């Protein structure tokens, strides 16, 4: 290793500050021994310990020592740098030192929380502190780069979360691009009839917001569109959006539906997505009466003209504004935004996956979402709850936790099922007066007015049977079971297995991440938790942020949520985006690569290594050149540089090699 010269602020005087973190650390790390050990390390002038280093008095200690010139480099042994590195770098600055003369030793997440006993913990803590000290001695003063932020925001998904975030930002004067893959905005909420616990009509509270979006001067709404590319970084994202052709000109269409009437298909024969298959639509259609924008769309798969180019196109004839345009092609929009909010929502659990519940096998077994449509006045049955036979059910079973709290499907609780099951129970009873049996594992009704709603249902003589349903069958054992669906379940309160014949079954399906979560995650370069939902930066302290700066989460894409929570989180995400934009700039960590030109041989090894094209080759000087603005600081080129002429700020070979030495050779 080339000889290590010490740069900048003179001989290192390293201060080591060991945090107890209450008992989080001190319970597994012998603080006093650690402190004694730290005193023996090279360049160390001061070692202190304190209950909470991140608290004001804790920070004071450091500032004071810097102020009095006792230390010029600092190691804080506490929690993960991902947690408090920024905090302590600021302390450095406040104390008047360059913030990068700082290194953190992670003795909580990596030590006290994962070790069996004090002996192990102390030993490991020592080694990490030694590493930090050896490293910080070689740190150099660095400047953070300031990059201005593009004030526009992209919101992906226009369910209630996306809509609320969009309106919040737009109202504050931010320009918002709202991208929705369906022909209309509204998401799942638009499908509902009533919302719990207040039972107010979903449409009544959603549609005004939907039209507000359409009308808002600051919102550019792109429905029937998908994000296909994201480049750049916080404050400066370059986004590609694909606008799928709907073959109907949005500007011209007035949503009169004449074309639909006129379609050569006299009968609707295409499964209607909006009504989750309970009804049929035509190739040219408007998803639902309040669709926003209220513009027809033609579906390529079923339209005769688009499939075979030999339709007489009666739709075109009847369209007065001449909105129909079979030559429409997909369009790629490129936009610059400073922040992105993902509100891509969820999909419902596919009940077929639990075979013994017979969904798709027996008639009159519906998923909760289907029933939501059925009870909806604007739905396929115009709000009537009826069996295939056309009669109203006399006995209905609602089965909770289908695809939730189940090791074979999803271990998590979907959080909304208990409440919407109660809602559905209420609505069916209201409409049919049927006997209703709820099969539940536990009733979970935390939330404002929720428990009260549960009481209300109990008073409505809805039956609650505590127990997981074993199976649903049509195999009758008694005459009265004939022609019925028999629910076989253990009633854990009575302690007996019961058979209950019913006319109709509602499966309260759980919530799942969207099918294409994986692609979306990669597109936006964020992570998922192991249950597949988008991963927030910190479950408590940064619940709507992600590990990628400038990308925020709203609504159920981060985990099952009901409407109030989704809206609240959407507001939070909007606020985070606003805070970011209004600051006007971001400070990038200076951990970029740099070329030592005198040493560069011009071998070009690094040039193509960089995935961000941050390295170019200067033919005249015959050296590689790093564009600091494009460099993201991964250091891959540095490892590749055959002559060690490329280095990375904060991660030079010297610093890392010394850290290695420190981490193994002292303890």
């Amino acid at each position, binding site marked *: 290793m080339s000889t290590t010269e010490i740069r900048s602020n003179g001989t290192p005087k390293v201060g080591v500050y060991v945090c107890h973190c209450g008992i989080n650390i001190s319970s597994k790390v012998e603080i006093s021994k650690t402190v004694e050990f730290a005193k023996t390390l090279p360049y160390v002038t001061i070692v202190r310990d304190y209950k909470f280093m991140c608290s004001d008095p804790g920070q004071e200690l450091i500032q004071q020592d810097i102020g009095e010139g006792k230390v010029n480099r600092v190691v804080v042994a506490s929690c993960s740098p*991902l947690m408090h590195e920024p905090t302590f770098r600021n302390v450095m600055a406040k104390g008047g030192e360059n913030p990068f003369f700082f290194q953190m030793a992670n003795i909580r997440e990596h030590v006290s929380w*994962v070790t*069996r006993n004090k002996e192990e913990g102390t030993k490991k803590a020592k080694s990490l502190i030694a590493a930090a000290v050896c490293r910080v001695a070689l740190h150099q003063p660095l400047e953070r780069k300031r990059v201005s932020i593009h004030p526009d925001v992209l919101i992906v998904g226009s369910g209630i979360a996306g809509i609320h975030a969009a309106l919040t930002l737009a109202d504050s004067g931010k320009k918002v691009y709202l991208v929705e893959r369906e022909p209309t905005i509204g998401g799942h909420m638009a499908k509902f009839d009533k919302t719990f616990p207040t039972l107010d009509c979903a449409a009544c509270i959603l549609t005004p917001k939907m039209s507000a979006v359409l009308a808002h001067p600051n919102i550019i709404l792109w429905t029937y569109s998908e994000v296909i590319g994201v480049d750049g970084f916080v404050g400066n994202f370059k986004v590609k959006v694909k606008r799928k052709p709907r073959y109907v000109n949005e500007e011209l269409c007035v949503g009169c539906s004449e074309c639909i009437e006129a379609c050569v298909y006299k009968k609707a024969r295409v499964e209607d997505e909006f009504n989750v298959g309970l009804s049929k639509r035509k190739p040219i259609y408007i998803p639902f009466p309040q669709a926003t924008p209220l513009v027809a769309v033609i579906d390529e798969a079923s339209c005769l003209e688009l499939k075979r180019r030999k339709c007489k196109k009666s739709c075109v004839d009847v369209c007065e504004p001449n909105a129909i345009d079979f030559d429409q092609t997909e369009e790629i929009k490129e936009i610059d935004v400073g922040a992105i909010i993902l509100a891509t929502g969820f999909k419902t659990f596919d009940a077929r996956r639990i075979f013994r519940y017979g969904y798709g096998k027996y008639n009159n077994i519906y998923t909760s979402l289907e029933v939501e449509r059925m009870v909806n006045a604007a739905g396929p049955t115009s709000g009537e709850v009826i069996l295939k036979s056309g009669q109203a059910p006399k006995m209905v079973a609602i089965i909770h936790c289908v695809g939730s709290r189940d090791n074979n499907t999803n271990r998590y609780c979907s959080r909304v099922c208990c409440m919407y099951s109660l809602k559905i129970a209420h609505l069916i009873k209201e409409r049919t007066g049927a006997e209703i049996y709820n099969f539940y594992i536990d009733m979970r009704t935390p939330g404002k007015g929720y428990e009260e709603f549960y009481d209300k249902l109990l008073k409505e003589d809805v039956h609650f049977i505590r127990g997981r349903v074993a199976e649903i069958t049509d195999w009758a054992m008694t005459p009265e079971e004939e022609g019925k669906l028999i629910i076989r379940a253990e009633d854990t309160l009575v302690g007996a297995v019961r058979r209950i014949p019913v006319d109709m079954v509602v499966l309260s399906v759980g919530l799942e991440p969207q099918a294409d979560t994986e692609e979306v995650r990669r597109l936006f370069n964020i992570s998922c*938790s192991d249950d597949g939902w988008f991963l927030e930066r910190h479950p408590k302290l940064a619940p709507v942020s992600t590990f990628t700066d400038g990308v925020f989460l709203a609504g159920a894409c981060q985990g099952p949520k009901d409407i109030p929570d989704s809206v609240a989180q959407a507001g939070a995400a909007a606020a985070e985006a606003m805070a970011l934009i209004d600051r006007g700039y971001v400070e990038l960590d200076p951990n970029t690569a740099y070329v030592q030109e005198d040493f560069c041989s011009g071998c070009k090894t690094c040039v193509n290594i960089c995935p961000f094209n941050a390295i170019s080759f200067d033919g005249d000087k015959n050296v590689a050149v790093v564009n600091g603005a494009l460099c993201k600081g991964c250091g891959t080129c540095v490892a590749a540089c055959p002559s060690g002429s490329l280095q990375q700020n904060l991660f030079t070979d010297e610093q890392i090699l010394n*850290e290695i030495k420190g981490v193994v050779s002292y303890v």
Partner: protein
Amino acid sequence: MSNDEAIKAQFEPKIVAFFCNWCTYTAADLAGTARMVYAPNVRVVRIMCSGRLDPQFVLAALREGADGVLIGGCHPGDCHYQEGNYKALRRFTLLKSLLKSMGIEQERVRLEWIAASEGDKVQRVINEMTETVRQLGPLRLEPTIYNLIEDSLLKIPETATLAKGDEL
């Protein structure tokens, strides 16, 4: 019990881990937050991306006294920097064949893809690796500096065929 077994019995391996900031290091934090107890033998050095891992670091760790080296990066396709982990994979593959030729047991150096959410994998891998290395016993590289040879762990029994100069 043979000398070797004796050593192994009370042997606590030192393993240096190089974890990428975005996936594996975060996963290790998660393991901590979830209080997943695991072997204390692995000491983590944080790098921004597994692509930063210069094979020199691995050899340096072994030279400085590590008995094994663990490298952790994002799953293929998940790299925060798009391709860094593939670069890591290429270097690692060639490094392995070099180490093999140098007579270093393959199991002493390991590459694992661990996503930010896989705290449990951090726990599993670290426990596994610690056991594997424990079984292999201490890595006792011959000192490079002559006058350190006396303290070398590599002492070997005097035999007729060997003369003074060889006690290193």
